[in-house]
């Protein structure tokens, strides 16, 4: 399988020293997997001992939610979780080897919205402990070797710029090279505006890599989490051999507000939620977070990978 020249040397995780050297001084220092995992425990669940579930409005004990994979103990509402926590939930303990963590987004367009993009990146980086919105690597799921990419909606709404596109592409290429099953957990607002047409081109780049994986007979399990929209849905997320979705995740191309503005009418109940997509034929299975590991494992087994 032909690889991009730079991808072949990327199989080895970077050392802390090499990371420290390359990293901008005002960004957080590189961290070990244990530290990453610790950071991942800080999910989007609001701070405080008690909290109100946004779905059933019950007052729930925060610790119980955390111990329940960040799923509401009363109504099964799936809270959004960061990439680190996703990895920790999905992979066999300690089996995840992060890769290409040194890739850093560039502000090629000198984009300024409410603040300069470069400044925004530094802020997001401090907040999440990552340089961009996806965590990639090799891992084991119930003893089965996989390559995994988990998007992080905490980092600029999981938007896809050049780094996300490049890391996803390398992950796909690694799956081709190693003949391991590919798992991508998507949660993203879509292509990242701040990298404009280059973000758009990550859609064709990742899809082209998936064409190669498909031609080689590789298995791709796409897992859709809340929210999966825009350019991510319109590229790799919808190209899984098997597409799984967490319950009630928002999944779509255009955002609900844009659609409501276009059609000037109320949107149907449950529109663009996992259940609706399954009914319309675009999602294979809706899987509760607690069953994700076992569902992925048995699909891998059925595919004989």
């Amino acid at each position: 399988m032909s690889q991009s020249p730079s991808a072949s040397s990327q199989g080895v995780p970077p050392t802390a020293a090499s990371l420290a050297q390359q990293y901008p001084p005002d960004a957080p220092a590189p961290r070990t997997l244990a530290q990453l995992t610790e950071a991942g425990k800080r999910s989007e669940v609001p701070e405080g001992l008690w909290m109100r579930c946004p779905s059933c409005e019950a007052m729930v004990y925060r610790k119980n939610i955390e111990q329940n994979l960040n799923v509401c103990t009363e109504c099964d509402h799936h809270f959004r979780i960061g990439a680190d926590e996703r990895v920790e939930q999905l992979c066999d303990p300690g089996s995840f080897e992060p890769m290409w963590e040194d890739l850093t987004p560039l502000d090629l367009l000198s984009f300024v919205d409410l603040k300069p993009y470069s400044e925004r990146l530094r802020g997001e980086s401090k907040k999440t402990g990552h340089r961009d919105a996806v965590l990639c690597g090799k891992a084991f799921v119930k003893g089965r070797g996989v390559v995994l990419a988990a998007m992080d909606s905490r980092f600029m709404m999981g938007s896809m710029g050049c780094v996300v596109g490049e890391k996803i592409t390398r992950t796909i290429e690694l799956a081709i090279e190693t003949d391991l099953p590919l798992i991508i957990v998507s949660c993203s607002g879509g292509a990242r505006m701040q990298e404009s047409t280059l973000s758009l081109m990550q859609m064709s780049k990742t899809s082209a890599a998936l064409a190669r994986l498909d031609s080689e007979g590789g298995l791709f399990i796409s897992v859709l989490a809340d929210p999966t929209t825009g350019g991510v849905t319109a590229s790799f997320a919808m190209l899984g051999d098997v597409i799984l979705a967490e319950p009630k995740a928002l999944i779509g191309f255009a955002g609900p507000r844009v659609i409501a503005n276009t059609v000037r009418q109320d949107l149907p109940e449950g529109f663009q939620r996992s259940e609706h997509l399954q009914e319309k034929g675009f999602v294979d299975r809706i899987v509760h977070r607690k069953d994700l590991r076992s569902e992925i494992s048995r699909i891998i087994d059925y595919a004989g990978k």
Partner: protein
Amino acid sequence: MSTASTASPAFELEFERPLTALERQIAQLEAQSDTEGYDISAEVRQLRANHTAMLKKIYASISPANVVKVARAPGRPQAIDYIRSFVKDFCELHGDRHFGDDRAIISGFGRVGPHKCMVIATHKGKDTRERIACNFGCAHPEGYRKALLKMKLAEKFNLPIVSFIDTPGAYPGVGAEERGQAEAIAVNLREMSRLRVPIVSVVIGEGGSGGALGIGVADKAAMMQYAWYSVISPEGCAAILWKAADPVSVAKAAEALKLTAQDNLKLGTVDHIIDEPLGGAHRNPATASDKIEKWITTALRDLKRFKVDNLIAKRYQRLRKLGQVGGE
């Protein structure tokens, strides 16, 4: 000096307003000379020269926001005009054989120069009725599936694909979502990357995001000089980033998005800029048409030289290298 560039277009772009007075004056003088028999050719010539100079000046420093206006100008030639102008023996093929025939996509056999090919285009519509039928050039999933079906037909009979892009974006509606807008575009991106025939694409007006890319994956991609191509429209960008819809914010977004042909060439997202006649393609559609025809003919000739496996490998490398990252 061609008369085409002084002919006043049927619509007015705000930033071209200084020209309109001159155009009116020229038309008046010409009418007088016709009816009253004065010889005022010298004055007319002078006014025309002024007009050209002013046009040059306005277009030399055209802002991204105004490029977007030119790209959307109602009188700007559309794909159907170029097809009528230089695609010989066009044989339109309709429908996706599953749901319907999306009028926002035109597809069919045709010949460009010496090349038999499959033409795929987004279609905005020429009058109000047609524009509504085409959703102003916003395709539905069945449109993207129609395009792919015809492209696979082209692959089967070894015909290269020529794609004309002019769309504000894929249609954001309830039906479009329920029929899998995202899936349809995603599948096109995947399949176009491995079609075993040459693909060339030209952004002739608006290159709106995934809706444009959905028929835009190519071996060689060009953009007209006053077309725009971006991840989102300036209006969409302004609405999200500044929660604003005023012209100043939209202009700021147009600037920030680096959506012009020059910017896209610099970023490597297109390979070539097709120059437009002075003052835009709408002032001289015939010249614009000739230039597009010439670029497509040459591009197809070059691409046909590759063995098909090399073509696909090269296409992959072209897509693969897009985007720059730091930290390596």
